[in-house]
């Protein structure tokens, strides 16, 4: 059920260049509804400006401990203000929002492909897949080694391969290059990252593999009511916040 959760901030710590991990105390009952790949809409502060909530993917939910983890990059005013929040402060969270990653029951090996701030939502997914005995390979990409994070965390799920544009970590090139270079085998793929990355993956694997891509778009309501966050699909316009953010390979239509 979508609800407003007033969460106490437990930790808000830099884990990579301009990238922070925010750990929030949350009601375990509410967390039980969080599927992998969903996002929350975060109120920046109790003020008229910045006005809109910011959509941030859920990195991990820990129902036993009642903890919700977000990883975000400081890119503008809202995320900068988020980064200034201190332990003990209350953060107003609205969620869970969106349709997350479907967990395939028959895939034996999956590949998680994350680029930049597309990395976080893959972790909860990988955790659940690994728990089910699925072989999980993670491919993380960034411009350079400073943009990579969570390598150890994903390492607990299986093999981790990296790609950087400047070659400072792992394969030099894009995640798609790394997948080929490392000859990774998989039944199903899950990806989240910048649109050009998703497009490249989509074009490469649509029709050939099963797979799911998580998109981003500017949002206002986050629940499908304002038509602000549409994306073109072969079945017409769809709402990234409600019908997505996750769409199947081959669904999206690129300009």
């Amino acid at each position, binding site marked *: 059920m979508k609800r407003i959760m007033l969460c106490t901030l437990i930790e808000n710590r830099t884990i990579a260049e301009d990238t922070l991990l925010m750990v929030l105390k949350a009601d375990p009952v509410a967390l039980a509804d969080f599927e992998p790949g969903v996002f929350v809409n975060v109120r920046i502060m109790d003020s008229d400006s910045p*006005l809109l909530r910011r959509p941030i993917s859920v990195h991990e939910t820990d129902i036993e401990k009642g903890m919700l983890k977000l990883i975000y990059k400081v890119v503008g005013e809202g995320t900068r203000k988020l980064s200034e929040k201190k332990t003990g402060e209350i953060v107003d969270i609205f969620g869970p929002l969106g349709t997350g990653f479907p967990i395939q029951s028959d895939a034996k090996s999956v590949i998680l492909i994350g680029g930049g701030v597309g990395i976080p939502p893959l972790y909860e997914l990988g955790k659940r897949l690994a728990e089910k005995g699925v072989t999980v390979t993670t491919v993380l990409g960034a411009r350079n080694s400073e943009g990579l994070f969570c390598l150890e965390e994903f390492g607990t799920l299986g093999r981790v391969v990296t790609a950087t544009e400047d070659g400072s970590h792992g394969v030099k090139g894009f995640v798609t290059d790394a997948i080929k270079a490392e000859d990774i085998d998989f039944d199903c793929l899950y990806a989240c990252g910048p649109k050009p990355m998703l497009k490249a993956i989509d074009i490469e694997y649509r029709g050939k593999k099963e797979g799911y891509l998580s998109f981003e778009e500017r949002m206002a309501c986050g629940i499908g009511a*304002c038509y602000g966050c549409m994306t073109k699909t072969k079945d017409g316009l769809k709402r990234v916040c409600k019908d997505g953010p996750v769409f199947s390979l081959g669904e999206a239509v690129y300009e």
Partner: protein
Amino acid sequence: MSSEMLKVDLPGLSLKNPVMPASGCFGFGKEFAELYDLNILGSIMVKAVTRDLREGNQMPRLAETPSGMLNAIGLQNPGIDGVEEEMKWLERYDIPIISNVAGYTEDEYAYVAERISKVRNVGALEINISCPNVKKGGITFGTDPDVAYSLTKRIKEVTGKPIYMKLSPNVTDIAAMARAVESGGADGITMINTLVGMRLDLATGRPVLANGTGGLSGPAVKPVAVRMVYEVYKAVKIPIIGMGGIRNAEDVLEFLYAGASAVAVGTANFVNPFVCRDIIEELPGVLRKYGFSSVKDAVGYSHRLGGR
């Protein structure tokens, strides 16, 4: 007690309370129905409907501004056939719906108005002559008094339901617009629609919105909205449904004082998805705090005081 104090009767609309979501900010209600029981609302102003399905503008359609936002949705809607379906779904709620009608020509407005009027749970039509986000038509209807007058008259001829004309704030003389639609036969006025605004992306040099300009809404515009409601209240006799930046029960009271008989809440639904429910709960207390025993008593209050 508090249920009596909130009641409002307007042409075609017998409202439990004066609070409703504004058009375009609440879709056709389905998404918010997952959050709370829509029956608590006075009404719902549903998303604009045009004759045919419209895809609207390109992305990005949204941008944030200080205490406000720009949108350029561009009237995306499933067309009149699709909207009739949405209305059926809304029949499960015991509230009169206000249907927002848009078009590019007088004929289109008239056609859509006539058809949507036949939908049982539509209590009144809101004629959107002020959408700033469509490239032709639309906006001119809302900025020229003569054109607005003639459109109002035309629509009155084809519908038996009361019509509320939605005024654009992007005009020199809002009172003249109000008088024009009143003489055209409008049963009420809803106001304000969004102010035309723009943001430029420093990195690309291009407008942040694909459409170039967009409509400014949210708390930033409230002082402009209150001023315009205040002016229009003095200019016409038909009732006003006021909106523009409302985000709590105190804001509602300010609009009532200015002359609104009821209010709509738009952008605030994005900030606090439960805002309409919260306002309805808090309104009786706020009315009492300032010495009013009913919503009706507060309508136009500022105009009944002498002096300055």
